[in-house]
């Protein structure tokens, strides 16, 4: 039987809600009668879990005017056809940072209990979290200061020892430009 997306009957464009091309080369499978998370926890080697999972950070633009909130998206992806469980150092599963400061705060915001946590990504799961940085750094419990114009790195990492070395971290750079400059680039 011919599927509708195999025919040429559909006009495809970039509008929302139009069906995407079907990718038949990749099919997610798992045994439904088995607790595959528990199984994968026992069978899948740590190294492989770390290698499989990817963390990416993206922003819609590279440049933002001073004071303009910067939305960014953190994507945690498990391309494997089995669930992956990554033990974390604390119940805090992952964190985002700006210029190395967790949640853009120069103080420690969270004091998670001293016990291990676990980040479980289902088979083929892509966990997307949208966040926003207001171009402010929290300098104390009750005070925030604006970030200087220039380059800033927004990163995200899973809460494990040496996340960068294990490939469980991602980052992107944005530039904060003074308002006049931002307007000039826009008109160009």
């Amino acid at each position, binding site marked *: 039987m011919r599927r509708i997306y195999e025919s040429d009957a559909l006009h495809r464009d970039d509008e929302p809600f139009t069906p995407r091309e079907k990718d038949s080369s990749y099919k997610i499978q798992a045994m439904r009668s088995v607790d595959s998370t528990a199984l994968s926890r026992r069978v899948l080697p740590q190294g492989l879990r770390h290698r499989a999972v990817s963390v990416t950070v993206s922003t819609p633009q590279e440049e933002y005017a001073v004071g303009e909130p910067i939305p960014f998206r953190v994507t945690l992806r498990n391309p494997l056809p089995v669930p992956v469980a990554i033990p974390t150092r604390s119940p805090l599963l992952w964190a985002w940072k700006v210029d190395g400061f967790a949640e853009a705060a120069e103080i420690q915001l969270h004091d998670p209990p001293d016990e291990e946590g676990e980040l479980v990504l289902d088979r083929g799961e892509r966990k997307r979290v949208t966040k926003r940085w207001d171009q402010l750094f929290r300098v104390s419990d009750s*005070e925030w200061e604006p970030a200087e114009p220039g380059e800033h790195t927004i990163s995200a990492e899973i809460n494990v020892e040496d996340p960068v070395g294990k490939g469980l971290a991602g980052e992107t750079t944005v530039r904060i430009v003074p308002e006049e400059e931002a307007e000039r680039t826009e008109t160009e």
Partner: protein
Amino acid sequence: MSLIEVNDLTVKFYTKEGVVTAVDDLSYRIERGEKFGVVGESGAGKSVTALSLMRLIESPGRIESGEILFKGEDLLQMSEEELREIRGNEIAMIFQDAQTALNPVYTVGEQISEAIRHHLDYDDEEAKERTIQLLDRVGIPEAEARYSDYPHEFSGGMQQRAVIAMALSCDPDLLLCDEPTTALDVTIEAQILEEIEELADEFDTAIQLITHDLGVVAEVCDRVMVMYAGKPVEKAPVEDLYYDPKHPYTVGLMSSIPRIGDERERLQTIPGTMPDLVELPSGCSFHPRCPFAEEACTRKEPPLLDPETGEPERGLESPTEHTAACLEYTGALKEGVDYSVEIRDPDADDDTEAAVANPNARSHRRTESNANPESESDD
């Protein structure tokens, strides 16, 4: 010594989306026999606060810091067994959703008498008798016949009343009521509230009443705490809060109460919604919705302050203290907040009106904006 003292309580939920700060650095105290109201929109952290007092926060939630002193003992340091002696006996809770709170496979009567047998050492017959009395007291008709009914045989309102009966069964010292009358019609609501008040007066039971119904708070409570995004924004004796609200959020809540005879075509609301607790706005959490917000509000988070002196709250508040968390009282706002409170009928609390008169005309300073001079002459 207060009956219960909550000091710097912080409760967080560690989720895959991030850390949800449900309660942030919350402190308050309740005296014996006092009726303490907690108000705020959905998601303000009211229920989580109550659940933490019973240590009923479930994973992934954690009580990260703070202490909860009940009769001088820290509930957070107690063993599970010690706590079980207190739960249901000295601190009881009326849960929000009665259907979920009741166990579907036990009869209603059995569930209530179990607590009585466990805590008060009654035998089966005595416990049954007391349960029937309690069911009758909360207004369940034919209580004796209903004793052996299962929860699904009760209507929603009756289930709620059964949960109330369960909470009252051991004459607790502190009763946590998490929206106890939301599922009930107004006549039963009035009865139940009266019952709760009576109990508080009779047995010197303290009550923490969580609600979004400001009318109920005015009716029942002595003192009120307004919560927003997990933090207290205003604490005051109930009369002060209604006649002289100090925080723009409280003013917004008051002005959104619909009134009979109001000529406005649309009901007044606070624009926007409660922020996502995973990602709170910088500075004062209320600033994105506040009609008086200035740049300073995005940079600095105000602590609870005495509106008259601008002094931060010292330790735990005294019962008469009125505090609000707004930068206005530190003198950091250039324009100030401007609203007027119109009191229509000084004899009834419910008729107190607080309205944001004109957020754009910012000529009045705080001292002038407390009350409308015209309304004062009406009193």
